[in-house]
């Protein structure tokens, strides 16, 4: 078939589906033809191949599997007894070089798009409505979809849970005597990782010294030899590599203490309402001044301190990831002005803790799920919804007062003129017209669309709405038009809308007219599109004015 391609490698005696044949690796494709025939029954473009797999070593059959983007796979069995392994490796190596060249990014994207369309039926419908019917081009359709989804995707990837650290990771490094007066420590990468995460100071030391000054092995030997590793250390020698780490730990401990605690219920310092003045109160036990403390006692308290520190560090290492992300979240929320308002909506931690403390679980009647306090940027926006600024006639309070007084005045001199009243029949007909179900109250007794319209029309209407919504979203997102690119886009979008109206909306209108349904089904849609046109024309006018 495509013999004109340069053949890079030919491997004979390769079986595929129990058939002997020859494998050809060419510049752009891999192909296989059965023995004795000069055409390929299997042929894949490299671009279609997702990956290759090989059978594990020591297995009887030596195979190579190609997995395609479509999910299909092809397996080749290298059957040449003496050189099977060598053949396979040659093929594998070549593929390894070739495949990355063809692994275009587009492929991934296509896959991604495919996946999205499959997962989201609404999107699929939209795609059909807009792209397949050629209202907008595929690129335009995907232009901001992918951006959205990629961030989505990214964050979902990021949310993967970080594995915590075992508190006993140091205990796992159990020293074993090697029989000749030495100790063997077993370190795994997990443990090293744990040490680094728990003690960033050690990591820093590692980065500083390995491999320039020390080999990795030396580094860890020193680590285990140093007093830093041992919890009952009191003071580390100055020449010790890790004395600085110890100092940093000390500093960290101190800063933790200085920072204090957030939860007032566990703050032992502020627990007592009144501390006895110095000199009052009875001393319990013999007084221990610093000088009289023995070395033993000192080392004991050092152990205690270190255990507390270790536990805190392990805990912090587990939480660090979460913290950063939540910090970011809070930061972003504060940048758009939320922080000021949020104070009023989120009671301070003390109040929450107090309320928690006085709550009796079993007395509460309904303990609904705990709700999260609402953070609002603009409170009135929340309670009223957005109000259109134009087309609103504001009446000042002066107006209202004057009109009220006007009415009052009129009422005060109102005299019923009994000779000029309506006939009773006219009055009753007026009342019926105004009661629910009457001629004038038609809109009040509104029958829902679902009752009036057949199901297929309904679904079609829904599709139209989503499609129109999408288009309009694109349209409105161009405003304010401040770059030439946006200018171009807005013009295109306007034409897209027009096309949509002519190819989709008008046929639908004709259809519902044919079925004698009320045409105001799509009036809202048309209104929306009209609003967009208005905006477009206004914008165009302004642009012309500017130009002239």
């Amino acid at each position, binding site marked *: 078939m495509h013999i004109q391609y340069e053949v890079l490698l030919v491997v004979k005696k390769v079986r595929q589906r129990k058939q002997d044949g020859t494998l050809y690796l060419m510049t752009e494709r891999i192909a296989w033809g059965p023995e004795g025939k000069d055409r390929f029954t299997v042929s894949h473009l490299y671009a279609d191949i997702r990956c290759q797999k090989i059978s594990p070593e020591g297995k009887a059959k030596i195979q190579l599997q190609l997995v395609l983007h479509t999910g299909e796979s092809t397996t080749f069995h290298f059957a040449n007894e003496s050189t099977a392994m060598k053949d396979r490796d040659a093929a594998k190596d070549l593929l390894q070089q070739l495949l990355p060249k063809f692994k275009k990014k587009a492929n991934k994207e296509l896959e991604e798009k495919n996946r999205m369309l499959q997962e989201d039926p609404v999107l699929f419908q939209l795609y059909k409505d807009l792209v397949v019917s050629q209202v907008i081009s595929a690129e335009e359709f995907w232009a901001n979809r992918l951006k959205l989804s990629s961030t989505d995707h990214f964050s979902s990837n990021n949310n993967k849970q970080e594995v915590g650290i075992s508190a006993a990771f140091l205990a796992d490094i159990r020293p074993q005597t090697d029989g000749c007066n030495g100790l063997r420590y077993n370190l795994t990468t997990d443990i090293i990782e744990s040490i680094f995460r728990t003690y960033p100071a050690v990591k820093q030391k590692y980065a500083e010294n390995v491999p320039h000054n020390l080999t990795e092995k030396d580094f860890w030997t020193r680590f285990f030899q140093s007093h830093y590793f041992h919890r009952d250390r009191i003071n580390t020698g100055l020449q010790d590599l890790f004395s600085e780490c110890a100092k940093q730990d000390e500093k960290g401990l101190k800063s933790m203490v200085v920072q204090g605690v957030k939860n007032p219920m566990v703050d032992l*310092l502020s627990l007592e*309402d*009144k501390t006895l003045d110095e000199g*009052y109160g009875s001393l319990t036990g013999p007084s221990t001044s610093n000088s009289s403390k023995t070395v033993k006692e000192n080392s004991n308290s050092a*152990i205690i301190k270190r255990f507390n520190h270790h536990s805190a560090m392990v805990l912090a290492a587990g939480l660090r990831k979460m913290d950063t992300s939540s910090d970011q979240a809070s930061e972003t929320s504060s940048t758009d002005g939320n922080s000021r308002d949020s104070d009023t909506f989120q009671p301070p931690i003390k109040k929450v803790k107090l309320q928690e403390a006085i709550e*009796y679980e079993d007395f509460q009647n309904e303990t609904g799920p705990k709700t999260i306090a609402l953070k609002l940027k603009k409170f009135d926006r929340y309670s009223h919804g957005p109000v259109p600024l134009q087309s609103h006639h504001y009446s000042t309070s002066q107006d209202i007062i004057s009109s009220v007084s006007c009415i009052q005045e009129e009422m005060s001199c109102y005299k019923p003129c009994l000779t000029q009243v309506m006939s009773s029949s006219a009055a009753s007909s007026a009342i019926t017209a105004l009661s629910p179900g009457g001629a004038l109250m038609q809109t009040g007794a509104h029958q829902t669309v679902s009752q009036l319209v057949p199901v297929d029309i309904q679904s079609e209407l829904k599709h139209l709405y989503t499609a129109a919504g999408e288009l309009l979203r694109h349209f409105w997102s161009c405003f304010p038009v401040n770059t030439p690119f946006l200018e171009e886009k807005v013009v295109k979008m306007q034409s897209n809308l027009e096309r949509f109206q002519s190819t989709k909306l008008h046929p639908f209108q004709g259809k519902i007219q044919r079925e004698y349904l009320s045409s105001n089904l799509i009036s809202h849609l048309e209104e929306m599109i009209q609003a967009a046109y208005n905006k477009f024309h206004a914008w165009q006018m302004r642009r012309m004015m500017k130009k002239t």
Partner: protein
Amino acid sequence: MKLNIEGLLVYFPYDYIYPEQYSYMLELKRTLDAKGHGVLEMPSGTGKTISLLSLIVAYQKAYPLEVTKLIYCSRTVPEIEKVVEELRKLMDFYTKETGEKNNFLALALSSRKNLCIHPEVSSLRFGKEVDGKCHSLTASYIRAERHSNPSQPVCRFYEEFDAVGRQVPIPPGIYNLDDLKEFGRRRGWCPYYLARYAILHANIVVYSYHYLLDPKIADLVSKELAKKSVVVFDEAHNIDNVCIDSMSVNITRRTLDRCQANVDTLQTTIRRIKETDAAKLQEEYRRLVEGLKETSAARETDIYMSNPILPDEVLQEAVPGNIRTAEHFVGFLKRFLEYLKARLRVHHVVQESSPQFLKDIFEKVCIDRKPLRFCAERLRSLLRTLEIADIADFSAITLISNFATLVSTYSKGKRAAPYSDSTTSNNVKSSNYILFQPVFERFQSVVITSGTLSPLDIYPRILDFHPVTMASFTMTLARTCLCPLIVGRGNDQVAMSSKFETREDFAVIRNYGNLLLELSAVVPDGIVAFFTSYVYMENIVASWYEQGILENIQRNKLIFIETQDAAETSVALEKYQEACENGRGAILLSVARGKVSEGIDFVHHFGRAVIMFGVPYVYTQSRILKARLEYLRDQYQIRENDFLTFDAMRHAAQCVGRAIRGKTDYGLMIFADKRYARADKRGKLPRWIQEHITDGSLNLTIDETMQLAKHFLRQMAQPFRREDQLGLSLLTLEQLQSEDMLQKISQIAQQA
């Protein structure tokens, strides 16, 4: 719901009630009716506070002339704030039900540190600094000086309050500490002085014990509270220690050195003032001749509480002539100081009573008893005259003069035990409960309540009063949510005990470690372990570390350890809670009698098991303790051993009770000492714990304990709904009114 407690309409702000709460209110009502004192024990987490508040508020509303004020004393600041919040809930309920506007004034009072709103002063970290700084801005002569010198800094909040605050009453409502600050900020008034002033006409006052018990503060704050008040001491199991602490004085060589410096400053200041402003000293002298008339005028009406430090005689007599002039007084102080220094030089222990001490001082330096008694008052007057702003600098001399007054005033029932040892510290210690007496005498009803007051009869004896009601309430439970186990042996059958002879035994320490290790594998979330003393814990932790037990425990849970530094411990505690919260699980090693055991609750998953390693006896070799025991034996016929066991058991119960804070909570209580199995120890635990100790759980090995613990935890982990409780341990109004329920309720209270 609305309850009828023997004819009194009580509003209770919940739709459900525990049977024991009803019973508690009955007893409380009887106490108030009889205008007597009461001792009531009810387990923590059964809503003691809300029951107390509901009943007393109802009583106050029904008989406004009988009970004019409720004084609620609690121990810690968070506790105080909790009480006020519960009160707010109750008052909201009143307004909702009756539709009337609340006309009650209730407020919390705390130290300046918690109430100050002055931007500079409130930023200081320690209470003492805040007090000192505040004093330097608000003292009367400082403010007087401002008239002539406007650049003198004063506190504008106090000025504002002083100008208008007293005329305008604070509107009725519930004021927590934060509310007071908020109110103060709005008006520009000092919240601290506002609160201190407002407690005089408030209906409910919530504050710390010290404001009533410590004579040094009570004199300032609680002097004018009316007799027809009900006083409640919540969490009162340690009340005797609070009394003793506030009446004890420690004098070390360092104190005396500082004292010397103080005296020197006084002398120079007097000399300077004499040259510039002799009239001032003359004025003071005249005032002292007239005696402390104003103070005695207040005392005469007798509805005020007396200040034990300022005995009645002092008020009636004028200040003795030999300390009336400033120079003479300073000379007097010098002599006294020299005498104390001489006493400190003695290297052997001397123990003597006050009369002995007074006799000795008279013989050695010719100081009479009478001027000694006026010492504190005289010093205060002098400091005022000399316009010394920073009282904190003179703490040493104030301490000495207070000591002089104390030692000369309370000769009866007071034991001064000055001694010195090689570490040059001298303790003078007065172990008396006289403090409490004025409280019992001055107020109509005093209620002492706590979760752990057993055995009930000992409190009236050591506090020397006669209660009309004494009752202990059990906890009605739909499921036995507490599981006390007494572990007496290790798996190797070696007895476990923190007894002095065996506590350093290798096998005991190892067994304790194994117990903790195995529990850490079984118990979910948090475990709290208490040791008998800090030193003991340090030793055990060190040897566990050497034996590798701690590392093995770390495989299951994180370890946090209480230290002697409160700030460090707070951090450890917060991290501990964090670890329990996020599911890692943690162990907190702590000390009985420490700050954690006294003030921190371990609700729900913060404490699924509590282990008490050993019996927390006090350090019995201490001389102070010996003096106290002797005193108890002589005065109240309480045997030393009885008191020691009582004291140990109340602390054990206190520690272990930290885990159960309600009926939906559950927890293991493990007593790891053989001695708990004995009847004399076990019998002193609170009833609500005792009744769950079966004969089968008395002397367990570690393995057996694990079996029982696993079984218990598995049972408790089942869902527990309200329907399971309803009718048994949780009642609606209808259920409460049924005949046989009332019958049952009457059995809950056990009269002691």
